[in-house]
């Protein structure tokens, strides 16, 4: 009895405490909490948290960033938004994934907000990202925070020492890698690796293979695509072009770290920062990342190439590889066809249509804050944030990066490489149709990993991918996919 009474007293006291909530700064979005879901680690998420603190001071909205493993971002957002659970308000993910969510009517249309927003400057966003990254079906549904291209990097000092020219094609890449593999690139007495590529399954490997395949398979401009035949949505994967790409990809493993199959992007970054890689396939991050303190071994030495090409291209009607000449590859240069791959499309934020109005307003304000030049131009120079340049003001001159500490020549090379990719008329676009995730990160990734591990032959892998892709296309409806692909490629 005594115990129960004291318990009641305790409860009453606690209830009294309930009333006294601490005051917070009065702001436009006071009392609103915005939940953001994105990938784990400091990259992408860290900056959102830090800017979130600033944002809260300015407007009173609380920004909460939750991190889940990369492979779970899309399923979690899709199930959360489609079932109406609404614990997440904003998803920051690959711009290409937005198409499937939008097809289900889950994304909030941002145009009305943009019209009322006087701080956002969308004209400054590079046209490719503005039209293909942020817009779905002509309406803006996402706001970019980062622009993505896959490029090849090389250690200028190592190549010079070995008397090698920067590679122009993937065959050159392998050739150079073989010549520098085993040499000591960071002065620690141990042999280092010719080429480092993140080949781990369920990670980013499936982007790298597309960088290899694009110049072989796509010749006639972005609208041609290199995954499907645009008229019928039949996969163009089971052919000599992709087969060559797979084989080249596997061959780079001979000149790479022994456990390359188990390395994801974090591991390869640690390797090249320690100075152990001669050649890299990567996004825009290594440019600013080499300025970090723990990258002293490579500072100023990592140069970029906007994309490697191929001397042989695929003739789609015969299915054979033919030399690249102006008639079959109008964008080729000196007999080499280039097709820089806009892998991943860039991290962008989208808002849950079913969230309540105040949250949506606060979420938009935060995304706009991240997108604005003042913030973005600072973020893209810091390698650790994972944000790469995507705005014209960031790409028009190397000054931004020179200020951040890059030597002039390196900054010019870096910006030049990105601009070269963006302006290339044969730029290869990442998949932006419903099911994009399933096509690439599930089917392509699994079969690629099994081929690399030696479980299946390359022909079997390509066959399995074709079968898997057809299944997905049938599932979503072939006609819908044809229409979606047309929209995605802007044809």
């Amino acid at each position, binding site marked *: 009895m005594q115990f129960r009474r004291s318990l009641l007293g305790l409860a009453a006291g606690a209830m009294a405490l309930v009333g006294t909530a601490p005051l917070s700064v009065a702001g436009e979005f006071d009392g609103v909490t915005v939940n953001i879901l994105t990938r784990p680690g400091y990259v992408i998420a860290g900056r959102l948290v830090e800017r979130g603190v600033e944002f809260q001071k300015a407007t009173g909205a609380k920004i909460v960033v939750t991190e889940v493993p990369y492979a*779970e971002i899309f399923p979690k957002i899709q*199930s959360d938004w489609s079932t*109406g659970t609404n614990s997440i308000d904003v998803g920051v993910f690959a711009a290409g994934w937005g198409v499937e969510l939008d097809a289900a009517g889950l994304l909030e249309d941002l145009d009305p907000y943009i019209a009322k927003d006087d701080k956002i400057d969308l004209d400054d966003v590079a046209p490719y990202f503005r039209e293909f990254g942020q817009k779905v079906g002509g309406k803006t549904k996402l706001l970019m925070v980062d622009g993505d291209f896959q490029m090849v990097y090389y250690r200028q000092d190592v190549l010079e020492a070995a008397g090698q020219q920067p590679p122009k094609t993937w065959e050159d890449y392998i050739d150079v890698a073989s010549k520098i593999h085993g040499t000591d690139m960071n002065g620690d007495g141990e042999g280092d690796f010719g080429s480092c590529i993140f080949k781990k399954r*369920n*990670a980013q490997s499936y982007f790298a293979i597309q960088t290899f395949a694009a110049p072989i398979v796509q010749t006639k401009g972005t609208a041609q695509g290199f995954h499907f035949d645009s008229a019928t949505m039949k996969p163009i994967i089971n052919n000599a072009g992709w087969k060559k790409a797979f084989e080249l990809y596997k061959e780079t493993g001979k000149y790479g770290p022994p*456990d390359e199959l*188990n390395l994801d992007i974090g591991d390869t970054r640690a390797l090249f920062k320690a100075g152990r890689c001669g050649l890299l396939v990567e996004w825009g991050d290594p440019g600013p990342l080499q300025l970090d303190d723990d990258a002293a071994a490579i500072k100023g030495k990592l140069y970029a190439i906007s994309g490697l090409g191929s001397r042989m291209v695929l003739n789609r009607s015969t299915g054979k590889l033919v030399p690249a000449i102006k008639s079959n590859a109008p964008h080729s240069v000196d007999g080499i066809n280039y097709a820089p791959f806009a892998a991943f499309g860039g991290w962008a934020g989208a808002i849950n249509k079913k969230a309540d109005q105040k949250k949506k307003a606060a979420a938009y304000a935060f995304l706009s804050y991240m997108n604005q030049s003042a913030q973005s131009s600072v973020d893209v120079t810091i390698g650790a944030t994972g944000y790469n340049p995507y705005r014209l003001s960031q790409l028009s001159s190397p000054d931004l990066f020179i200020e951040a500490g890059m030597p002039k020549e390196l900054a010019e090379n870096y910006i030049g490489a990105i601009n070269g990719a963006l302006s290339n008329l044969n730029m290869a676009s990442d998949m932006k149709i419903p099911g994009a995730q399933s096509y690439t990160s599930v089917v392509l990734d699994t079969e690629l990993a099994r081929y*690399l*591990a030696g479980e*299946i032959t390359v022909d079997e892998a390509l066959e399995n991918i074709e079968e898997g892709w057809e299944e997905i296309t049938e599932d979503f409806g072939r006609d819908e996919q044809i229409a979606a692909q047309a929209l995605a490629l802007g044809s």
Partner: protein
Amino acid sequence: MQKPVPQNTKDIQPGNSPAGISSGDKWREWCDRHAGSFFIAPAVTLILIFAIFPTIYSMVFALSRVRFTGDGLKFRYVGFRNFAKQFFGSSEMHFLGRTEPVSILGMIIFAVIVVTVLWWLYRSWKTATWVRMLGRSISAAMAIFLGWILCASLLSGNSIGTLYTTLFYVLFGCAVQFAIGTGLAFLCSQPIRGRNFFRVLFFIPLMVTPLGVGFAMRMIADVTKGPFEPILGLLGLQDWVWSASPWSARFVMVICDSWQWIPFIFICMLAALENVPRDHVEAAQVDGASSFHIFRDVTWPQVVPVAVTVLLIRAIEAFKIMDLPNIMTGGGPGSSTESMTLHSVYVWRANDLGSSAAIAYLLLILTVVVCASFFNYVVLSQIRKA
């Protein structure tokens, strides 16, 4: 004269309260009479709602094509397509492994397996009831199916899929863990000092979070930065990476899993060995028997019931392995260290909820048949003997 023990304890009535029965007492009496229901109701309800119903609901998932639309989940009935995909369709190589070409050795061994199983079935035909025969037929069917996959894939030099990877973890893992665990228990059951200290110490790995074990093992198994690097260097194996080859990855998985589960076997077997009466052993020692004979003829028969029960429990848990392969290799080079649970999770991530449920169901069937067979034919017979 002993009081007769009542068989049906429900018949015992509480004594009447002296002041007559009031309504409050009537309520308490009613509660007490139905105490049986009240005691067991919460457990039964919880299990029904959170275990039985979802299992049945999961079957609906497995039989449908599930899609996320703007208003939630939409189911489209597709029959057994998700299951067929695992055995004949696009997932066959992933699930079953490569099953052709079948080598001569594979054919021979398969024939041997079929003959053995059918002979066993025939032998029980005469002595068993129809219920028992049904059970035995199911076991036999499973044995033949598993035998076929084994012969067609592994014994023919082909690669195996997640089905056999799971079985590998279970069978090989349990065998290794049992051998080492019993060995340790035997050592500890000797007259040594500090037995309790060892018991406490050896128990710790069992309780460490499997995720934590996964990370610890991943770090330790790292060939460039882990503690084994100097040893591998000495052996001239600097360039060998265990995670690049399917079978070495699987072996490493089993080793790491054993680290966590040997304590379980150790604890149970140690208790069993401690319960063997010392005087039997000492009498045998006086008679001049060697330790080996003592173990085989005196100790072992007494611990066999516990041993098989422990094996059964370990096997049941082993089928569910997921954390370790996920953390250490993300499914291994290709898909070689994927267990069926992990396979199901990866398929879930791909938003194919139907296939994910189908694979989960296949795992359930596999677990139930294998464990029930083991229980009926091995555990029960050993317990009956004891």
